[in-house]
């Protein structure tokens, strides 16, 4: 079920009525939330709920054993079982065809004639998110960094909680499961703030991403010709805005909906396009994934504890796998590799260059970072290397002539939207929406809220899927 759909609003209204109904006890409310979460997922493809159940059962059992066992070998085996099941699902459903295709290419390259039909496996929505979330539980249990979930219901709800089930934020057990232990009820202000965040998220998705930016990005990346530099840049900038508004929009909706239930989810985005440097970027973009990769991949790979070479290897491996997490294609690996490379270069300059994060120098450095990020988005968005190559050569003015595919108004529209986006991120760099709202008069906030709702309504969201669902 999509947040930007009528069916979701009916679903949410029913859930809220039941949740705040005085006739149910907390235990029953949690059960209702769990059932609602399964329904939320099943409305897309009912049989795939079974994967959620298997993942839940395996990790609940593994967590239970990890809590009581003292024999380190046995504990390791339970952890490996959890990882094998979750990564097995991910490997089969997400990377099955990719692995088969690459295997075929490899054996053909060494002269063995082998052909394989693609398996055309359906990708379960949000599988990368919920498998990572549930793995974090067993890994933390293994490392004794978190308590075992008190009841199966609490754990199942942690795995399946509908606001963040299909596109995050990826929440750790200690942040979420503990909130299910005591009855939760949003205060009136929390509830309304949640509704406001839901509005902001929908505005980002429906108006900014789908209405203002998606068609320009689609036109440019769908073009078969070598493009004019302006078009290549504008298409890439449009995509940078589209993917931010799409994904941050989903996270903001998720946080808002959870808050309407009295549950607090962590921030997933903190104005990333005002980042200065790439370490800063990854503290602001998809925070829950970057912290997951840091804690469960980068640090176990050695982090910065074993010298500079191991550090660089750990950084590159983390970012390459982070790229692959986004999709089963080599273009995503290149996207990850570029980010890894940026981080390595940044490390080399650290301590040698005095960087100011304020004033003109700060803005210029943020612009430089944003420009470099845009180079990576080309590989993220392009379906084929040839498209990416053409785009990059056009962006660096290496093509003398190029086809113009965007009309003047589209160029202006993208330019204005992205400029406003960058300015907003810069202004909000060291603050938060809540802080700004506190300083805003209720009347102004009300008018602003009404304008957002009105623009959502007249944009007629045709129920476009969120980009990150496919990851």
């Amino acid at each position, binding site marked *: 079920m999509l947040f930007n759909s009528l*069916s979701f609003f009916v679903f949410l209204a029913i859930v809220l009525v039941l949740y705040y109904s005085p006739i149910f006890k907390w235990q029953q409310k949690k059960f209702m939330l769990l059932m609602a979460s399964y329904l939320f997922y099943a409305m897309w493809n009912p049989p795939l709920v079974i994967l959620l159940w298997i993942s839940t059962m395996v990790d609940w059992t593994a967590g239970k054993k990890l809590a009581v066992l003292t024999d380190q070998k046995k504990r390791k085996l339970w952890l490996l079982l959890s990882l094998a099941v979750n990564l097995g699902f991910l490997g089969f459903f997400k990377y099955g065809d990719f692995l088969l295709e690459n295997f075929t290419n490899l054996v053909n390259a060494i002269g063995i004639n082998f052909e394989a039909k693609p398996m055309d496996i359906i990708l379960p929505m949000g599988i990368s998110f919920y498998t990572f979330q549930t793995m974090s539980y067993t890994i933390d249990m293994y490392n004794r960094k978190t308590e075992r979930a008190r009841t199966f219901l609490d754990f199942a709800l942690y795995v399946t909680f509908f606001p963040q089930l299909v596109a995050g934020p990826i929440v750790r057990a200690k942040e979420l499961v503990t909130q299910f232990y005591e009855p939760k009820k949003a205060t009136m202000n929390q509830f309304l703030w949640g509704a*406001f965040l839901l509005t902001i998220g929908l505005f980002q998705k429906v108006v900014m991403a789908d209405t203002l930016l998606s068609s320009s990005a689609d036109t440019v990346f769908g073009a078969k010709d070598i493009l004019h530099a302006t078009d290549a840049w504008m298409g890439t900038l449009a995509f940078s805005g589209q993917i931010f508004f799409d994904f941050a929009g989903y996270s903001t909706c998720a946080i808002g909906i959870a808050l309407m239930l009295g549950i607090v989810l962590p921030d997933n985005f903190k104005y990333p396009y005002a980042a200065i440097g790439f370490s800063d970027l990854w503290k602001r973009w998809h925070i829950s994934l970057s912290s997951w990769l840091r804690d469960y991949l980068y640090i176990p790979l050695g982090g910065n504890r074993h010298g500079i070479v191991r550090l660089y290897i750990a950084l590159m491996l983390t970012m390459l796998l982070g790229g692959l997490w986004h999709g089963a294609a080599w273009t995503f690996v290149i996207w990850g590799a570029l980010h890894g490379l940026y981080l390595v270069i940044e490390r080399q300059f650290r301590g040698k260059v005095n960087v100011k994060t304020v004033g003109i120098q700060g803005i210029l450095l943020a612009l430089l970072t944003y420009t470099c990020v845009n180079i990576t988005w080309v590989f993220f968005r392009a379906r084929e290397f040839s498209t990416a190559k053409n785009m990059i050569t056009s962006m660096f003015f290496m093509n003398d002539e190029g086809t113009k595919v965007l009309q003047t108004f589209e160029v202006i529209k993208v330019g204005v939207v992205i400029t406003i986006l960058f300015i907003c991120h810069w202004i909000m760099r060291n603050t938060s929406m809540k802080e700004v709202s506190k300083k805003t008069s209720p009347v102004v906030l009300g008018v602003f809220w009404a304008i957002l709702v009105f*623009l959502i309504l007249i944009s*007629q969201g045709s129920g476009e899927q969120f980009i990150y669902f496919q990851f």
Partner: protein
Amino acid sequence: MNLKTSAIIALVLTLIFITSWEFYWRSQGRVPTVDDDKYLFAASRAKVDKLTSDDIIIVGSSRVMFNIQLDEFEKLTGVKPIQLANVGSSPLPVFHDIVNNTDFKGTVIVGVTPGLFFSTTYPKASPIEWPQSRVDYFHKRTLSERFNHWLSIPLQENFVFIATHGEVLDDNVDLKTLLNNVEINNRTGRPRYPEFFEFGSVRRDRNVRMTVETSTDTVAANKIKKAWKFILGGENPPPDKNSTTAFFEQDAKTFKARGGKIIFVRSPSSGFFEQGEAMFLPRERFYDSLLTVVNSPGYHYQDYEQLKTIDCCPEWSHLSAENADTFTKELVKIMLNDNVLPTTKAD
């Protein structure tokens, strides 16, 4: 932070804004209509699985959608056909789907618009790809999408600001179309597509009636004519009679073998279309040949005095709403007289 005040202001202002927006578009002559999108097609296609051999399905292009009025048809036969035709489309993909993915063995009325029926079987060509995408969507639609569409229908039927069309049309009132219509200069140098607007009003059962504006206002009709000329004036591939006829024949054999009946209908056209169809898709070589190969009855408007005298067509290709009523009544009477239609009405 006094969010209660903000929420009340937001609620009141939103109601004021959206009501004003609705009234503005109504004052511009807009009326609510259902979007004939893939969701609506799928909802109609889903009904096929419950049909009996006494039921009727219509496949084809826009002409058979505008010209066969379902209510008139039902009045005379007691059977309301399921409308599965699609604008700008060949009927081949939808008929292929009915034959191969259902057990339906009733009657299929096939609207033959020569330029589309005999266009091609190439999967990537628009007359095939477009209806095929709708068929594909039907087979993979989710429960959520079905529920969502079911909820949206009453809203589409009652609010102009909701009632836009899936295809990007110049007269849609959603923000994206309004912005798309802003043109500063033609930077790309591509020929600008002539202004085009929806000239049919669609119901939830996919019955389409030409709008009063199109049938009475020659300026409006001329805009559509201009668009037809633009579309047909480009480089269009020649018709592929052999492969389209053979494709249909194969499915027709399977369908008839299980007891299904096929009836062809050739709707009237005028002006630019009539001349073009006579010149490039002459009846003898295309329509008559198809009937011979498939060996099924066909009703060509030129063969019946009561059909060929109906005034056709404000924009050369489709009948006005009133004339479509007449056309349906006369056509059904002829068919009933020939005993080719199932009917639940007592004689």
